[in-house]
């Protein structure tokens, strides 16, 4: 993507030289021969991307329009399926319409996967909003702390990073023990919450475990941003009489925004795709079935319908990502070709 972007820029610059005056070549212009050589050079990379990214995505979208194998009542065997099915798989999920024996559809009854689509989308979104907000606030605090020079700073940095270094499957198991009805959390709080077998406690448990694990990631990215802010800007602000809060809002925040945007967007996308933590911690029970868990469940009973579901999920996540990029006005895609800092 980035390579393609670079080349494309060169192509446009090239056109600019040949006629259109809107754009002026910034670097030395290149002739068509060089452009062709550039394409030749990046062709292997593009081909590899097509193979490992493009092909599976397109294949999944194609499959999402096909039928799943159906049972042949006379032989008791499944047929091949894979017949053209139009948008039936999509209406199944989006409209929660389930097939009825003998043709036609009905509203999906409770206990079918179809009836869980909007619920799981809502849960995924809810967990994402809450978890990412908390993570960003705490992460910012951690980053500011790590950025200060004080005794034992190295130790604090390592301590903060440990949760991020532990594999999610392991932390999920750890939290499962902590959240056990007879686990340490209930002992400390003196409560009798069945943390993972009631709806809101189960959701909170996932948010808590996720915040604990991924705050360091945000903190680390923000820290990188903080360290690129020259000390002189603060000195100048101080001379102008800005207090600590004013320095934070008028100097730190605007200058750290590109790094912050990258961190938040990455985290949001990660959380929207979340599978491992709830799958292990709650098994998706008690209103914690995320979209990804639903996809995996559907995979066991029909690949093509699961393809439709994952395509829908993909589009939803993509739309949210795009909206976030707009919101932050972030220059993520073209960052290496001279991102503008306001």
């Amino acid at each position: 993507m980035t390579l393609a972007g670079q080349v494309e820029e060169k192509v446009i610059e090239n056109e600019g030289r040949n006629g259109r005056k809107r754009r002026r070549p910034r670097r030395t212009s290149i002739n068509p021969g060089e452009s062709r050589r550039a394409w030749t050079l990046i062709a292997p990379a593009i081909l590899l991307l097509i193979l490992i990214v493009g092909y599976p995505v397109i294949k999944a979208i194609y499959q999402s329009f096909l039928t799943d194998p159906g049972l042949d009542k006379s032989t008791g065997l499944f047929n091949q399926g894979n017949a053209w099915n139009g948008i039936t798989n999509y209406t199944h999920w989006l409209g929660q319409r389930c097939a009825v024996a003998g043709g036609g559809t009905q509203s999906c009854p409770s206990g079918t996967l179809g009836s869980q689509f909007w619920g799981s989308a809502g849960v995924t979104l809810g967990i994402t909003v809450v978890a990412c907000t908390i993570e960003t606030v705490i992460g910012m605090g951690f980053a500011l702390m790590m950025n200060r020079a004080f005794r034992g700073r190295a130790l604090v940095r390592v301590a903060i990073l440990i949760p991020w270094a532990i594999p999610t499957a392991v932390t999920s198991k750890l939290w499962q023990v902590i959240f056990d009805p007879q686990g340490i959390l209930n002992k400390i709080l003196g409560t009798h919450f069945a943390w993972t077998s009631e709806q809101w406690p189960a959701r909170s448990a996932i948010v808590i475990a996720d915040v604990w694990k991924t705050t360091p990631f945000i903190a680390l990215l923000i820290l990188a941003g903080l360290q690129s802010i020259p000390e002189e800007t603060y000195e100048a602000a101080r001379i102008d009489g800005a207090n600590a809060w004013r320095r934070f809002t008028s100097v730190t925040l605007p200058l750290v925004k590109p790094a912050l945007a990258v961190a938040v967007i990455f985290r949001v996308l990660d959380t929207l795709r979340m599978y491992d933590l709830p799958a292990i911690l709650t098994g998706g029970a008690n209103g914690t079935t995320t979209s990804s868990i639903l996809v995996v469940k559907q995979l066991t009973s029909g690949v093509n319908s699961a393809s439709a579901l994952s395509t829908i999920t993909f589009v939803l996540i993509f739309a949210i990502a795009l909206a976030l990029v707009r919101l932050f006005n972030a220059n993520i895609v073209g960052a290496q070709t001279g991102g503008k800092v306001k």
Partner: protein
Amino acid sequence: MRKKGIAPAVCLLSTVAVLAACGGNGGGSSNDAAKQGASARGPITFVTGKDNSGIMPYIADQWNKAHPNEKVTIKQQSDQADQQLSDLQQHFQAKDPGYDVVTVDVVWSAEFAAKGWIIPLEGQYALDTSQLLPATVKAATYNGKLFAAPYASDGGLLYYRTDLTKTPPTTWDDLIKQCQGKTTSGTITGPKPACYAGQFAKYEGLTVNAAEAINAAGGNIVGPDGVTPQVDSQQAATGLDFLVNGFKQGYIPKEALGFQETQSLNAFQAGQLMFMRNWPYADAILAGKDSKVASKFAIAPLPGPSGHGASSLGGHSLGISAYSKYKATDLDFLKFIESDDIQRNDLNQGTLAPVVTSLYSDATLVKKFPYLPTLLASIQTAVPRPVTPYYPGVTEAIETNAYAALQGQVSTKQALTSMQAAIKSATAG
């Protein structure tokens, strides 16, 4: 700068679209595959779940000694059932001839059979099942044909505390009455144990427990054809109510909503339960040295509404892959695994419940495993979970709605109505 990134992306995607359109896959017929290697012999691979009890080396040694030219290789999968399933699905979809004989959980056999992945054991592959427990044969039968050879069985048992009661309850009312005064209500707190628990977390174990309660009361999840749901009945409601009321009235602690096998076992082992439903494997662990109840527990058949209840059938069978090259050897291996010697060693070394009926009255074995007669009674009255190729959807329907009822979110009646509709929908394709 941002906008410029999009054009090459679109270009890239459209290139791929062309590629994908060319790459449609044609489905081949599996009939030819099923016939291939019908009388051929050669080395085979036996695919099975992780061998936690170390019985596989014995099986491999015994077989390889007798069949030096048709040696078996044991391939162990993970110890998680869903990972084993997806491993098998992937290899079958790839028509892998390297998976010859596979271990099939009782609830997978119908799906594997309907997809043509395992071959029917009829004609030249016929298997003598007269010595086997009928329930295990029934669970491996789909559409009137046997598709897998029962290998190990499993049935639910009632574990009870002998220091709290001398006579195990035979009915649910009896169980509740025995708990009065001796147990706490609602949650596991204080020195007294809670009354009863099984596996009530939202997973496969809940389907097992709910089906047991429903079957015990004379209800059915599906009709005799294995597809038509019949769960919306008065009997089924009586059965499910035993569990629903347990949480309402407090004779089942609310912690049990998160119990899988291990958690319920841990609670009983710590002396926190008076009665527990679990599989036979719990016996060895509860008698172990880490157990607080080592000499204070015994095993009885599951109770029911009036007299003993019905267990759900657990266990595994062995199927012959349709893509195996040496099916004659595969069949011999199936017969070998049903032999007295192997079944005996599986029990002795791995505490796997045998599928050969006569072993349950074998004096030496009964002396070593006193629960065998009880287990036999449990398995003989056991009801297989629905034998349907749509099992994943069916079990989701049972789990989800039973769980909602146990949590008190919906009434028993509502839960069963939804369960009925959801099973109908899941099996409609």
